[in-house]
């Protein structure tokens, strides 16, 4: 038995994305089901996986066409009120070899409509690794279903096998959920925010800043209650993309609907947030005054530090942030980060390099490594951020920071410290 594998930021920064150690490369080893892996492998269990995401369109229902094992954990979504929106066409062993079930899908759609009091806006046809391997032409299947039922059908590809492809399942499903938007007259004072399936936190300053710039209507799929509201997204003058997984959807909207997009990144370093807003202002031809938000957030961080001291954090990846960027932010504010449980890739290697300069001894673990089964929590951690870090450090205060209300900008930073403050206070009062 070996100890849980880790590499320090300094050691890792000397390598490159192409020369990562095998332990940090998921294709090279078996996968340990840590809490973060479960979010990654089985996101239906919490948050938005392909199944729940496919139902982001108001009034939609889903037919999951799969062996029973692929739909089993959907039961967790029943508690969130989805039970009447899911239907299952179960495949048997002959089906998965011959593909004979494909011709039955339109009939299944017709039959499920008989169960519904109202005609759905769309039937999402969710398919799995079986169809990835059989090469099922889902566009054609969707057309056949539409012809038979008169209801729109769209594919949701739950292709776990293709998770590390250029367009992974969560990118594809975003493209699918916006695919029903149709061209209409666009309005200069309306925009979309793309990237998440739930809305940004109500207190996020981006709404105020966009209002300052003359934007009267901001649409997000997580706020659309009806199909009409959803359809309104094609009125937008432009879209703001906050998550790179929505890039393919934004490109598709640009091509089909003529809606251009601006890409921003969720970051926690205040100077970077300020800089992004400056660039956003330039892109839309307005000056966005974020001074008040900047100062207020800075004060909140100082006040947290004054109250709790210079804490040492363990940062996970099962959270609404990039683990490495968040770690950099924490270090920048004068805290320490001793451990990060994260997935290193092209997207965040630049943060690893910066981390190596500021905190070279920070230990970087892979949540996916089998050796994490042998992980022993470090004594030098004061608090944890992220559901996985909280799991590893059960005896320390921690904030999951993975709620449905999406953090962004200064409000995101404020949410982080509010949750940490609460977690630390609760732990203290429990003693």
């Amino acid at each position, binding site marked *: *038995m070996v100890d849980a594998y880790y590499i320090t930021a300094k050691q890792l920064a000397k390598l490159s994305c192409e020369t990562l150690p095998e332990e940090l490369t998921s*294709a090279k080893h078996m996968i340990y089901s840590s809490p973060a892996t479960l979010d990654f492998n089985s996101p239906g269990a919490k948050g938005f996986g392909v199944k729940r995401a496919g139902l982001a369109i108001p009034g939609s229902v889903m037919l999951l066409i799969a062996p029973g094992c692929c739909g089993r954990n959907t039961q967790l979504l029943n508690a969130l009120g989805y039970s009447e929106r899911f239907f299952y*066409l179960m495949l048997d062993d002959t089906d998965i070899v011959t593909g004979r079930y494909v011709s039955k899908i339109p009939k299944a759609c017709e039959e*499920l409509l008989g169960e519904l009091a109202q005609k759905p806006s769309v039937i999402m046809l969710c398919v799995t690794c079986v169809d990835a391997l059989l090469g099922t032409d889902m566009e054609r299947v969707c057309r056949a279903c539409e012809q038979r039922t008169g209801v729109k059908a769209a594919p949701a590809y739950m292709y776990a096998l293709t998770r590390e492809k250029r367009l992974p399942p969560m990118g594809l499903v975003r493209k699918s959920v916006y695919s029903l938007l149709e061209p209409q007259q666009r309005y200069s004072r309306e925009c979309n925010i793309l990237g998440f399936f739930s809305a940004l936190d109500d207190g996020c300053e981006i709404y105020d800043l966009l209002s300052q710039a003359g934007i009267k209507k901001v649409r997000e799929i997580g706020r659309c209650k009806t199909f009409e509201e959803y359809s309104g997204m094609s009125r937008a003058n432009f879209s703001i993309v906050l998550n790179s997984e929505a890039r393919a959807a934004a490109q598709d909207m640009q091509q089909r609907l003529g809606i251009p997009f601006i890409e921003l990144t969720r970051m926690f370093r205040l100077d970077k947030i300020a800089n992004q807003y400056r660039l956003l202002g330039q892109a839309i031809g307005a000056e966005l005054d974020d001074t008040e938000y900047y100062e207020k957030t800075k004060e909140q961080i100082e006040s947290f530090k004054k109250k709790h001291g210079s804490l040492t954090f363990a940062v996970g990846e099962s959270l609404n942030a990039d683990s490495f960027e968040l770690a950099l932010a924490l270090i920048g504010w004068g805290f320490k980060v001793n451990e990060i449980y994260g997935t290193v890739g092209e997207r965040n290697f630049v943060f690893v390099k910066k981390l190596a300069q500021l905190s070279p001894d920070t230990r970087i673990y892979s949540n996916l490594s089998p050796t994490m089964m042998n992980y022993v929590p470090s004594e030098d951690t004061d608090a944890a951020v992220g559901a996985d870090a909280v799991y590893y450090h059960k005896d320390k205060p921690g904030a999951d920071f993975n709620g449905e209300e999406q953090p962004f900008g200064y409000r995101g930073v404020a949410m982080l410290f509010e949750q940490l403050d609460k977690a630390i206070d609760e732990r203290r009062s429990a003693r």
Partner: protein
Amino acid sequence: MKKLLKHISPLAPDDSGVCAVLYEMGGITVICDAGGCAGNVCGFDEPRWFKKRSALFSAGLRDMDAILGRDELLVKKLKTMTEQVEGRFIAIVGTPVPAVIATDMKALERMSEKQTGLACLAFRTDGTKLYDHGEQMAYHRLFGHFAEKKLPVKKGRLGVIGATPLNTGETDSRAMREVLKEKGWEDVVFFGLDSGADDVINASECERLLVISPSGLKAAELLNERFATPFEVGFPFAPSFDISGKKVLVVHQQFAANAVREKLSDCDVTVASWFMMDKRYMQERDVRITQEEEFSDLCENGGYDVIIADSFFRRAAGNFEGRWIDLPHFAAGGRLND
């Protein structure tokens, strides 16, 4: 339409059943999948996951692994892992991916044994069958492989087969142990629940076997044949209900449902199960349910006053207007006992 579920979500699949039996056996279990099946087991069907450690992993297959059938890579990853994580044996659990590409599980078993030096058991599950099928395979192979030696029988030792959370709604044996203690059994081993591979190896020490789910029958018959260990079936942990003079439908795994029936006095009881039912323990009107429509029809037109079943099935009961009494079954509704 057959195989269309309109009111319930899928029941626990065969791969979850194999994993449930092997969970505490001290082996290294690899689910041969892209990640989602392991996620389903660890995140849903295996309630012990965050309580008791187990070397249960996903093979993390990617499309090219499946298209090219890269079994050597899988075995290489397995070998590396045996150097990192302790395990007494290896188990490879099939999913839809190896089923579609027709992976030769037997060959995989041999290759793994050769490379790692550990015994390997590969299970041809494919996620289309139910958990009891997987449990049956796992119990049978486990006892077949490890329980070879005839040891002196320990008087008063009872071996329980079938005690998985999927069957019992329990994540440890405490409550069930108490029940059996009251019945005079002081030395009880619940195979795979608070017990490991050693107890399987020493299975011949048991004076008697108690099979609490049909999934354990085949293994009990094997032990009976091999060591002449007598076995009986039953589920002494079933709750009692204060009902009499009613027409009742009980839905659970067969032995649990039978036990509920035995406790109902003066009632006309039918047992139904979505899972395997052994004819030897069925009564004339007992029913094996294979489709949601069959279940709806049974509830609506069976003339029952009372249905005792997991409330998970309530939505599929159509216009049944009688009394519904909740009887949780983890393999259906995913709820543990209170």
